[in-house]
């Protein structure tokens, strides 16, 4: 193919192009899902379980139904189609049938003329519960005799990876136990959407989501409608981070709209949002690392437990990720990993930025520090010495074929400038641990430095072909040629839509690019998750643009031929013009009597599922990051302040450098949150802090300056060589900061978030017994077939047959 890229086109690939949604967002004019409004609209409300585990003996809706202003009250029996939904397994009831399995599980929904009426009516739904014993501890859930969350037991999925000889001896062993808490994505825009009944008996759902098509795949069968009658449109998304991968209010709003014949909008409150989406799985990890005396890793054992709460969500994929990344971006010749994703009566857990990698990164990086200490080596050196590189073999037996600049990210990270040492004498309390609380003038404050290295997959793994489709149209306007890009890919705040525009500009040499609103009128783009959309939807737009260009060049050549000219050399596009061998031939406009349109699908290279020994070429592309944290700890008060984060990232190629920087900073903030404050606190399955008053996320005074370095080693075989960057900073920030806290305090902190009590020794490190025995593998199918989606999400990716 003969398309040259044009660096001159403003706002193309490689430039920090201005965000297409920037101005309206800054001005407050951007319409988020929670701003949706329609004439005659009703307000939906959800009645939720107050119990972690209970049988429903009966539900009395009479008082709610007769409440003035209420238009419908619906229960499980009113679900028109399939009664359950789910991303990988359809195990989650649209509305609880005979049983509730977590606090916050939806039991009834209603629609009313205003939100206040809806709330008051919801209080009048009387549910008769028989409270049952609940299991809310992940280790207890594995013990014989524990209450069973599902009739098929308390294990969703177990992954065993056997690599090399797990009995291989080593000179030096270090052992540790680690925990991370349940973290909330803290999406600023709560779950929101509006369902509008259509004349054809179908429904249009406007919803803030990460993947329109997987939503439709779950919504349509529950409504008993064919997919084409369920049309999804992307509403403005106020952050996602995994929180919008699962269906929340979607089916409920559609059911109410179809029942009442009126548009129904549902917007969760902040408190409800804590029940309305899955969280990051809390983890318990046991690890043993063996190395030679000169610091080469020989053998690693990891036992990983993730508490998935009541339903499957994407837990099977999360635990697979946690297992495959359990030993970190290092060459490990022998390993045994046993990873179990457990069901409990806690709120469901699923996807969150990092997707299983942060939990194990927290553990393996603490282990690398322990190893360095045991060997009397510098922590960075141990890591450099064992760093993976192109050609390395992972513990699943996958040969790393793409770029793997692990050594480079570590070295670049360490080369970033250190923050200045504080001046002698009293210091401004605002800049110290405790910040605005005015607790210190510098007394008792100690610095510590820590580093962490991590890696994660880009795009879906294990044989999943998460292709992306895009349609590109070039047409003539009064102001010259213009491009329209149509993709179902969700912009969730990360800047993807700007990236798609940049790709079109570069490929077609046309600056004026607009985006068609994302919807299900086009094929799936896959999820805006797994750091995959720049590669996948960027790739789809690139392919479609190249097809458009080909047609354009055909017209150019044909016209030249009919004028008796032959064009020599390669045809390229630049600045709205066609060039042959670099010489202008004519304006693109001249060839657009008929617009040119092309639709293309991008597939990444195929991968394989893990086999019974956990071996396989599972991941498409890997991205690596290293981070250094400098912290200050008030040794007496146990307060911490991160002084600086230095972060180096392998991104393949930065399509939008400013966007990359934004992801690094934002991702680091999220990792900082887990290190120091973010925890969904549970008590018998009940969330104790379902508000931003008590679920704390970092403020400006908590976020330090982030200095970053971008390592650009293009990934072979992917568009522009670009990897994703959405998740990596999150996974390394937590272990880097906690390592720095250990260095500052000398305490063996082994749980995130670290609390003041931990930093001053009021609370001992979390203790554990021996790791629980691993379930039999492969064992029975964890979820009976009838619950499943058969081929699951993969069905979505079958080529359209239009």
């Amino acid at each position, binding site marked *: 193919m003969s398309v040259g890229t044009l660096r001159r086109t403003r706002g193309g690939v490689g430039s920090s192009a201005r965000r297409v949604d920037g101005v309206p967002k800054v001005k407050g004019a951007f319409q988020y899902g929670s701003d949706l409004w329609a004439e005659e609209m009703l307000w939906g409300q959800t009645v939720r379980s107050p119990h972690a585990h209970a049988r429903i003996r009966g539900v009395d809706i009479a008082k709610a139904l007769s409440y003035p202003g209420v238009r419908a009250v619906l229960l499980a029996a009113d679900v028109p189609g399939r009664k359950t939904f789910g991303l990988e397994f359809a195990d989650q009831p649209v509305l609880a049938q005979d049983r509730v399995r977590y606090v916050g599980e939806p039991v009834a929904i209603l629609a009313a003329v205003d939100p206040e009426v809806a*709330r008051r009516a919801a209080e009048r739904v009387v549910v008769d519960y028989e409270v049952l014993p609940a299991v809310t501890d992940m280790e207890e859930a594995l013990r014989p005799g524990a209450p069973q969350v599902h009739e098929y037991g308390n294990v969703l999925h177990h992954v065993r990876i056997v690599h090399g000889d797990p009995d291989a001896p080593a000179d030096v062993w270090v052992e540790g136990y680690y925990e991370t808490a349940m973290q909330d994505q803290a999406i600023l825009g709560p779950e929101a959407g509006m369902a509008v009944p259509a004349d054809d008996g179908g429904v249009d759902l406007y919803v803030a989501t990460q993947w329109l098509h997987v939503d439709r795949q779950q919504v349509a069968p529950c409504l008993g409608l064919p997919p084409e009658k369920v049309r999804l449109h992307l509403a403005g998304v106020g952050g996602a981070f995994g929180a919008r991968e699962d269906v929340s209010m979607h089916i409920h709003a559609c059911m109410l709209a179809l029942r009442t014949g009126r548009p129904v909008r549902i917007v969760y*409150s902040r*408190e409800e949002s804590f029940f309305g989406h899955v969280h990051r799985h809390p983890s318990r990890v046991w690890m043993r690392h063996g190395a030679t005396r000169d610091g080469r890793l020989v053998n690693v054992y990891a036992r990983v437990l993730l508490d998935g709460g009541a339903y499957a969500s994407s837990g099977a994929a999360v635990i697979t990720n946690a297992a495959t990344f359990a030993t970190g971006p290092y060459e490990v010749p022998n390993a045994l990993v046993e990873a179990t994703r457990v069901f409990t009566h806690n709120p469901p857990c699923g996807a969150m930025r990092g997707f299983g990698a942060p939990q194990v990164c927290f553990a393996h990086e603490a282990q690398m520090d322990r190893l360095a200490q045991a060997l009397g080596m510098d922590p960075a050196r141990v890591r450099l010495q064992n760093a993976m590189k192109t050609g390395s073999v992972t513990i699943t037996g996958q040969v790393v074929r793409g770029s793997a600049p692990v050594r480079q990210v570590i070295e670049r990270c360490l080369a970033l400038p250190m923050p200045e040492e504080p001046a002698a004498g009293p210091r401004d309390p605002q800049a110290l*641990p*405790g*910040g*605005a*609380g*005015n*607790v*210190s*003038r510098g*007394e008792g404050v100690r610095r510590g430095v820590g580093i962490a290295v991590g890696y994660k997959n880009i795009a879906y793994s294990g044989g999943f072909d998460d292709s992306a489709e895009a349609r590109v149209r070039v047409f003539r306007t009064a102001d010259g040629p213009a491009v329209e890009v149509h993709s179902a890919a969700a912009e969730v705040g990360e800047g993807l839509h700007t990236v798609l525009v940049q790709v079109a500009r570069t490929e077609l040499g046309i600056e004026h690019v607009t985006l068609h609103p994302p919807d299900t009128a086009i094929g799936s783009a896959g999820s805006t998750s797994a750091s995959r959309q720049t590669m996948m939807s960027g790739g789809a737009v690139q392919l479609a643009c190249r097809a458009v260009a080909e047609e354009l060049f055909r017209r150019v050549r044909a016209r030249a031929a009919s004028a008796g000219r032959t064009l020599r050399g390669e045809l390229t596009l630049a600045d709205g013009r066609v060039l042959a061998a670099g010489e202008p031939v004519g304006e693109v406009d001249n060839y657009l009597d008929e617009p040119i349109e092309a639709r293309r699908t991008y597939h990444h290279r195929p991968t394989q599922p893990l086999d019974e020994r956990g071996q396989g070429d599972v991941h498409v592309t890997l991205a690596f990051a290293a981070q250094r944290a400098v912290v200050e700890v008030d040794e*007496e*008060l*146990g*307060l911490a*302040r991160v002084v600086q984060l230095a972060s180096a990232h392998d991104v393949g190629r930065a399509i939008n450098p400013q966007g990359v920087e934004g992801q690094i900073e934002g991702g680091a903030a999220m990792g900082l949150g887990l290190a*120091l*404050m973010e925890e969904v*606190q549970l008590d018998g399955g009940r969330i*104790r*802090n379902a*508000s931003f*008053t*008590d679920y*704390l996320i*970092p*403020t*400006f*005074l*908590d976020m330090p300056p982030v200095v970053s370095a971008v390592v650009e080693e293009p990934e072979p075989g992917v568009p522009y060589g670009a990897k994703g960057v959405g998740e990596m900073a999150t996974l390394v920030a937590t272990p880097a900061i906690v390592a720095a806290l250990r260095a500052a305090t000398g305490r063996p902190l082994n749980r995130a978030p670290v*609390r*003041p*009590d931990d930093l*001053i020794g*009021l*609370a001992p490190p979390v203790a554990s017994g021996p790791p629980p025995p691993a379930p039999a593998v492969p064992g029975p199918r964890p979820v009976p077939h009838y619950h499943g989606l058969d081929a699951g999400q993969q069905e979505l990716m079958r080529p359209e047959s239009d």
Partner: protein
Amino acid sequence: MEVLLPRTLDEALAIKAGRPEAVPIAGGTDLMVALNFDRARPPALLDVSRLPELRQWRRKEGWLVLGAGVTYARIVRELPEVVPLVQAARSVGSPQIRNRGTVGGNLGTASPAGDALPVLAAYDAEVELASAGGRRTVPFNEFMVGPKKTVLRPDELIVATHWRFVRGPGSFSKVGTRNAMVIAVASVCLVLDEAGHTVRVALGSVGPTILRAPDAERFVAGALAAAGWWDDPRATLPAQVAREFGERVAAAARPIDDVRGTAAYRRHACGVLARRALVWALEARRAA
């Protein structure tokens, strides 16, 4: 819901007399949260944020009179000499909250974690209340009688707080699990009265109300007297005084475990904050 907009305090009090169920709203930074969370649905709101008398502060015969409607942002700008109050005001919420939130609202809410309250307790402030029937003043420690419990009557409004200016150093510190915009896990206000030769320390978020630590106060005032410090700020104090002061303050705390922190940590933090506050106060006077 009705929103009533009186123009003067008298108008407001007349409304309150007839409609005691009307809930006053000042900055709304507590009340609107309660409304949002569906915890309150008052039949009427009475906006007190426009009442001129409540928005003033003044000095009167050695007293500070702080109108209930003065916001934290104004305190920070306009009252720099009242250091502990400014430090408390500066620690409240975020700039947006400080632009709206008032000391009167802090009193109305009467949370043990209210950041202005330890300052009022340490200054032995009086709370001025008014109804259509007249005015009364109540010492702060009698005004707040429990978590979210005060002696405010349904027909009354909080008009102001008053306290005698105290010559001497002091500070307010609060511990929370993030560096800003955090509800106090524990807070301490220390005031040294050079004229009266007394020390006052008040603790927030470690009991059902704001607590004073009389034993620690007497101990340190005595130690300062014994060292001759009241007369000579350069006098040195035995090293263990500050530590023991901290311990005695910690002993006065009556904390509980909750979602924001453990009782053990809260008690510990009170001791550390009190000790540091004393050291800073001694240094401040020495440097003055």
